[in-house]
């Protein structure tokens, strides 16, 4: 699996990616849209957003989101 921008987030990313890939193939593609992996995603995302802030990319992201909101 690929690394995270924050190396300390690698393990959380691995856990989240594993959960998501399983959900995607076994549930989402078969029509079950109920979200899963939310708890691990929150932990992983918090870690990533922290790394993004530490690397000063948060402003760049903010500007890009203004042009093309998520």
């Amino acid at each position, binding site marked *: 699996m690929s*690394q995270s921008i924050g190396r300390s987030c690698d393990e959380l990313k691995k856990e989240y990616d594993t959960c*998501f890939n399983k959900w*995607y193939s076994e549930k989402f*593609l078969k029509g079950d*849209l109920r979200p899963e992996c939310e708890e691990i995603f929150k932990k992983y*995302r918090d870690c990533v957003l922290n790394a993004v802030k530490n690397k000063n990319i948060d402003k*760049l992201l903010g500007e890009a989101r203004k042009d093309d909101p998520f």
Partner: protein
Amino acid sequence: MKLFETTHTFFYNWSHVSAANWCKYPNEKCPHVIAIDVLDRHVDPETGILRTERLITCQQNVPRLLSRLCGGNSVIYAREVSEIDPKNKVLRMTSCNLSMNNLINVSETVTYTEDPSDSSKTLFKQEARIKCGESISRFANYIEDFFIQRFRDNAAMGKQGFENVLDRLTGQGETLLLHKKV
């Protein structure tokens, strides 16, 4: 401004390709992509479309002119937004650079759709637009040519790399051994 477009057919069904998309990196053909992170993700309950926002971290050589203007940093960040419509079997991804965006804008759109004449195949289309900012317009031709060539090279490697990922995920051929080495 320079434009780039390429198409390809993958001999795998759309579901397999869309799932493999999330496992595309790392692959040995695309060492320049060093990290990928999901920033946000949700399913639209009405349309059933899965929307994902990702941050891509790349490390690759850039023209010295740009490198000097950016303090010699060769790490480039890009933002990708994708939508997957499982009912209509469409995966569309748009990405643009975050780094150096005052100097150059590289935006790319990639779509994967089921081949209407053969559901065992998936059609791939990639379009890119590369435009230099006003401040370096004198060098625009040179810089844009550099990035178009880089794009062309990365696209060719990316296609090959993704084929390897698709093979590996179906457990076919010697690419399975390559993955084990990695």
